[in-house]
């Protein structure tokens, strides 16, 4: 494959995103640097979803009439496109409501496995209890931490974690003592939503598999921003969210290796996920249907299919290169401003486009307010990674995050905004 790294034509792309043309706070140009929280949507995605609803809408997998056929085709076709986008098979992709549900699904299914493993020996590999361990990291988003805390609490298993170094990398020096024969599952983020850090997947997968543990990858911040192939990474499960990759809200994705999904007990139960139902008890359908109870996010899947097409046409490698340029420019610019402390790697190595920092003497909330006043939308707070902030000794931080529709003018506006913040609060 030849690397197509012709730079993005950001002006042309921006025309697809109507919201980027609006102004905020008394006529200021909107500088949207909060894509790490949620991305904006191109017309192509909005139009695809609306066209589906205006022309082909019906309940999928349930009806035998023409609209139902068309809707089912559109829904399953979207699944196939999303699966191809991350290098896996359609029957290994489960639609959830967000990435958070995907992680909860695996955690609850593991909890349920304990309840059924006597009657279903296949489920036993997911069951866990006292003496078993769950491994996470200190840089996880709450979505990939709290469900595991809860699973540990419900089952009596123990939660353990990898620490974070001062410069915001995973501390893997003790990998063999953290992941042991007692470990049943290792859950970690591919790319930190705060630090930007891209974590090495291979050593964790290798060690986890060596001890027979399952690997759950939180790919919320990697899949939207770079080419990711779950099969090549060798993870067992992975989650990501439609709304962070130009697609609709209300849709998350769970990848699970075919044989694992086939053996795993269900989580949410109800219509469309059953095989037979009697008052006395029920049996369940094959995956992915087994994990999609109730009426699915039909039009949202269609929208995400369009988002995946859009990203593919632009090119994930080009998007990653573009964001790299913006990230390095932001990091270099911040380094020149005194009194700024960047949380996370300060160079562009193994790092994505989330740039978090604190301004000496200015609370992040106040800094965010001054930026907002200039039309610059950043996120302030702990970004759902409170333990990470505690570890790094800050209560909160300001985060700028980039996407394909940002350009160097946005970076410049951001840096000017940071300088204005210092001026406004009179800090040196």
């Amino acid at each position, binding site marked *: 494959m030849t690397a197509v790294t012709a730079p993005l034509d950001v002006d042309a792309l921006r025309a697809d995103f109507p919201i980027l043309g609006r102004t905020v706070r008394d006529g200021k140009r909107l500088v949207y640097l909060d894509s790490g929280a949620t991305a904006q949507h191109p017309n192509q995605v909005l139009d695809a979803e609306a066209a589906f609803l205006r022309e082909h809408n019906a309940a999928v*997998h349930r009806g035998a009439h023409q609209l139902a*056929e068309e809707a089912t085709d559109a829904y399953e076709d979207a699944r196939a496109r999303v699966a191809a986008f991350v290098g896996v098979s359609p029957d290994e992709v489960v639609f959830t409501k967000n990435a958070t549900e995907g992680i909860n699904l695996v955690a609850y299914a593991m909890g349920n496995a304990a309840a059924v493993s006597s009657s279903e020996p296949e489920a036993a590999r997911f069951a866990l209890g006292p003496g078993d361990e769950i491994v996470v990291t200190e840089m996880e988003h709450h979505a990939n931490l709290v469900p595991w805390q809860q699973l540990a609490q419900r089952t009596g298993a123990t939660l353990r974690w990898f620490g974070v170094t001062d410069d915001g990398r995973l501390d893997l020096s003790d990998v063999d003592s953290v992941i042991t024969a007692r470990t049943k599952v290792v859950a970690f983020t591919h790319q930190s939503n705060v630090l930007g850090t891209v974590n090495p997947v291979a050593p964790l997968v290798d060690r986890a598999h060596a001890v027979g543990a399952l690997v759950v990858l939180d790919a919320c911040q990697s899949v939207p921003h770079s080419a990711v192939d779950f099969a090549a990474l060798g993870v067992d499960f992975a989650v990501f969210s439609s709304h962070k990759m130009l697609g609709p809200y209300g849709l998350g994705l769970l990848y699970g290796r075919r044989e694992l999904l086939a053996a795993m007990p269900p989580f949410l139960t109800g219509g469309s996920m059953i095989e037979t139902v009697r008052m006395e008890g029920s049996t369940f359908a094959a995956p992915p249907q087994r994990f999609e109870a109730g009426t699915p996010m039909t039009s949202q899947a269609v929208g995400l299919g369009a988002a995946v097409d859009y990203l593919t046409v632009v090119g994930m490698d080009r998007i990653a290169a573009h964001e790299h340029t913006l990230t390095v420019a932001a990091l270099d610019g911040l380094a020149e401003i005194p009194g700024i402390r960047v949380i996370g790697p300060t160079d562009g190595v193994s790092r994505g486009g989330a740039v978090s920092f604190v301004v000496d003497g200015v609370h992040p909330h106040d800094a965010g307010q001054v930026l907002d006043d200039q039309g610059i939308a950043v996120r302030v707070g702990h970004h759902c990674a409170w333990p990470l902030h505690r570890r790094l000794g800050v209560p909160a931080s300001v985060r700028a995050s980039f996407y394909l529709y940002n350009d160097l003018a946005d970076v410049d506006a951001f840096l000017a905004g940071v300088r204005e913040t210092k001026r406004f609060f009179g800090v040196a």
Partner: protein
Amino acid sequence: MQLQQMYQEIILDHYKNPHGRGLRDPFDAESFQVNPTCGDEVTLRVRLDGDTVADVSYDGQGCSISQASTSVLTDLVVGRPVVEAFGKFDAFVELMHGRGTVEPDEDVLEDGIAFAGVAKYPARVKCALLGWMAFKDAVAKAGGEQR
């Protein structure tokens, strides 16, 4: 009218006068299959004689498509080598998943070619395959070589 394409006379005949219906002894293996959306079900038994499908018998409830295709199945596979039966299985599955683009081979599928029209209705493909899936499963359980 598209409907006639789907409900070929052959299909309606098999539906009204199914071949090989009713569960028979002796048998080597049995398979129960269900279509979870409509509740259609089939119980199908297979008796093998060496490498040959000696008998197929079945019972169940379902729509004309699922009943007729199981009836056609018995005509196609009983008395044939298992390997040949699976050739027909593959041909039938390919036809059904072809969305109307696959040209069926009458020498292989005989009455089964009448289901070409059904392939255009994805919601009915599962109906047409219900008995066939039971056959595949039962032969596997009976230890028949698939290939």
